[in-house]
């Protein structure tokens, strides 16, 4: 299915101590202003260049994204070799995993995360001894199946050799002790942290296959088990990874019949690695959001799993089932103007969904843009698919989650609803008086049912107009009038992206 690409495909190499950051590996950028089509063309011809900003606000960092994956593996512990502030996400993920695991029928989850609490003296004399002492104490207490050690800006700059320490501890404990190199300063793309986590998992846990199983890997965040019914019907079993898989399950994800990604921004590296290293075929189509997107994805799934006929029947049945509701929702939503702010892959997916519902997409701010994915397959490109199906997207921005730019855009565009994917954004839509919702459950919008779920959510949100108008009236706006009336790329260094 994949078309020829000009770039030479670099083979995934898990023998490297760390994975190459996205800006180098995937040509990813964090700043662009234009239209979706322009961005695709620049990516295609290899002339897409990143731009800096003379004003910026705190973004995320790789260590958080690495941790969000590693912290969900059952049976392991995570040691964050860092000052205590880097552990600010421990409780958030304890809560997320605890809540999600209830849905997986697991009620005794306890996040086992530890900070080495690096102090000033450690930055002078090195923190390795402190790390080893902590690891020994933690190993004695917890007897984990494996230990992951995530790094930090502090441990990285002072030059702590976490890799060497991990090797030594691994021999001593007789279990995998794996460094995950995810210092925040190393990459502008916090999504590089996903790759760092997967690199560690591939290096330390995953073994070569003994056989082929009927399991299908689903590279997932958290959420619920939405793939069970579909895969069971096709005679396969869903295996949700990396969060909520046990250590033992992860050992043999190499034996799976296929790999599905809930989000290409998340799973790019792991999906490609499992295919290249262990022959697990990856369903390379962009994840199933919107009618057309779902049809295409389903057919590719059918092809990979050798269930093409069955899939055609399911497609036909599902189209029939959702048709009455879909028509009803489309008539209610037709012409409503939406703006999307989300990570790259979800931004593309949401863009498709919104247009599928008959709404007008007046623009989008995605956090970053990967010029290509690790599988170098064009069919994986959700943005290209969305543009192909629905046409160009105006006011298309790559914003690195810069709230001042999102607020500027919303202030100046005529919008009925803001749909955002990450925390911290929606409140600004509401403060501007816009009905706004957060699509924090990525599975909510997936597949055919997802389109209906989504329509209901949009209708419900549009109905919160009293709340948002009231909030607007009483909220403080920290941005100056001057800023709100400037072109959005005023602080882009080096001028326009084109």
């Amino acid at each position: 299915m994949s078309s020829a690409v000009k770039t030479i495909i670099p083979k995934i190499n898990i023998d490297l101590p760390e994975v190459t950051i996205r800006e180098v590996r995937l040509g990813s950028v964090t700043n662009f202003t234009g239209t979706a089509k322009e961005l695709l063309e620049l990516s295609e011809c290899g002339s897409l260049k990143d731009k800096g900003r003379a004003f910026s606000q705190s973004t995320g960092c790789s260590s958080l994204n690495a941790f969000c994956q590693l912290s969900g593996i059952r049976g392991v512990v995570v040691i964050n070799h860092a000052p205590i502030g880097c552990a600010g996400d421990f409780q958030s993920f304890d809560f997320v995993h605890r809540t999600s695991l209830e849905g997986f029928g697991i009620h005794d989850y306890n996040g086992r995360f530890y900070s080495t609490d690096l102090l000033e003296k450690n930055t002078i004399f090195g923190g390795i001894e402190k790390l080893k002492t902590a690891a020994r104490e933690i190993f004695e207490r917890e007897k984990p199946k494996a230990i992951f050690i995530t790094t930090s800006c502090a441990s990285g700059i002072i030059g702590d050799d976490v890799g060497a320490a991990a090797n030594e501890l691994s021999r001593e404990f007789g279990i995998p002790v794996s460094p995950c190199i995810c210092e925040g300063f190393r990459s502008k793309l916090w999504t590089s942290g996903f790759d760092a986590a997967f690199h560690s998992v591939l290096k330390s846990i995953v073994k070569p296959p003994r056989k082929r199983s009927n399991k299908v890997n689903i590279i997932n965040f958290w959420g619920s088990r939405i793939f069970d019914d579909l895969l069971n019907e096709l005679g396969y079993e869903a295996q949700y990874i990396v969060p909520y898989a046990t250590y033992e399950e992860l050992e043999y994800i190499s034996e799976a019949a296929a790999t599905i990604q809930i989000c290409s921004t998340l799973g790019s590296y792991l999906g490609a690695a499992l295919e290249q290293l262990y022959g697990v075929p990856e369903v390379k189509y962009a994840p199933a959001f919107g009618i057309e997107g779902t049809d295409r994805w389903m057919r590719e799934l059918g092809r990979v799993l050798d269930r093409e006929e069955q899939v055609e029947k399911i497609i036909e049945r599902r189209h029939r089932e959702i048709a009455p509701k879909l028509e009803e929702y489309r008539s209610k939503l037709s012409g409503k103007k939406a703006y999307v702010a989300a990570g790259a892959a979800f931004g593309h997916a949401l863009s498709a969904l919104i247009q599928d519902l008959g709404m007008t997409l007046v623009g989008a701010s995605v956090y970053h843009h990967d010029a290509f994915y690790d599988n170098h397959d064009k069919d994986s490109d959700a943005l290209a698919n969305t543009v192909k199906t629905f046409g160009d997207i105006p006011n298309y921005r790559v914003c690195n989650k810069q709230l001042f730019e999102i607020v500027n855009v919303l202030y100046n565009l005529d919008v009925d609803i803001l749909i955002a994917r990450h925390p911290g954004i929606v409140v600004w839509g509401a403060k501007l008086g816009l009905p706004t919702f957060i699509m924090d459950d990525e599975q909510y919008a997936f597949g055919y049912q997802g389109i209906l779920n989504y329509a209901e959510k949009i209708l419900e949100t549009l109905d919160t107009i009293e709340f948002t108008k009231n909030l607007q009236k009483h909220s403080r706006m920290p941005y100056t009038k001057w800023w709100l009336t400037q072109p959005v790329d005023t602080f882009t260094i080096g001028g326009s992206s084109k």
Partner: protein
Amino acid sequence: MSSFISHPKFTCALGAQQTVTAITRAVPIVHSGPGCAVKVHELLGQGQSYVGGGTIPCTNTGSKEVVFGGVHKLDELIRSTLKVLDGDLFVVLTGCTSDIIGDDIGSVVEKYQAEDIPIVYAETGGFKSNNYVSHSTVVNAIIDQYVDKFRSGNGVEKGLVNVFASVPDQDPYWEGNLEELKRILEGIGLKVNILFGSRSGGLDEWKTIPDAQLNIVADTWAGVKIAKHLERKYGTPFIHFPYFPVGGEQTSDFLRKVSKAAGLDSERTEAFIKKEEERFYIFLERMADFILEFRYGIPRRFYTVLDSSYAVGMSKFLVNELGILPSGVFISDNTPERWQKTVAEELENISEYRSVTPVFETDGEKILLEIDKDDHRNRFIILGSAWESHYAKQHDADLLILNVPLTYRLALNCAYIGYNGGLRVIEEIYNGVLETYRS
């Protein structure tokens, strides 16, 4: 103490960004790696408020700055922040990257200060301290670089006090607590600079800090360095009440001590105390029927997993006013040794009939392992954080979340200290108890 921290209940020095966001119309500017400000906000504070969380200007330091230095980028960020964000005070804070590579941020900020722009800086690299410590670092930096320059008063004003009692957002109920402290201190005739939150007069209040007659520290140790600094700088004396006063007895004790130190009219003070105590004890009396009669079990023992200010105040209150007895007082704020002694003394004399020995430990998992050694024959309550929630649930214990992380609570303006705070504690403990019997 363990060599590591699990179940973190405080954050790094950069946590003082919340000290800044708690000042009305103050804007933090963070010179750190990407992610720092947001991670601090994950643990501390609910909602971005004016300029918090992902709204905070940040250099998002990358490899280039780590290798070549980040002062240029900081300079650029400050210049643009002044155009983009509408603030009355800008506070530049550093993260690990800047402090390890040794960026001279002073030289950058002083340039703006020379133009009389209200901007200050402090080094808060994460490894330097925790946020209890850096709170005073940042407040002192604001005093030295802003208050001193823009002060508005005419020398010492009788009856004016500054209060340093709660580390904003580290104490999740700081806003309500400060509101209550202001209320009771005004009740005995003082004019109160409460400095943080919506009940303060914002930066106008800060400008009168040097004019205070007395500084009041009402926490175990976080505020002491500020008061000492002000004593050296302006000669202002201070009184240190070394824990959060909770309920009738402690709050009255606090007010009497302040009244004496400030040389107030003791009759007026006593009149206010009398009125407040009457109200407080009418409620205590009313609920006594309930706690004595309720037949299905209410907590008889308590554990704290709290910072020192809350641990001492709450322990005294539970023992002396509610009859709930201590099974373990664990203190998780990495209390400096000097202040561990103070805490130990307060708890040794917790009542006429008993004394308690506190345990200082920052490894929360270890604390739970200790608690788990007890047989739990009586229903018990944990006063702690979200980290203790699961254990409490497993053991059918009650839980009152007073420390970050909150996770299972939404905090607006409720207070847990003072007279009103005492009443709130009672309501919450027993509401929690009754809730467990709801069918």
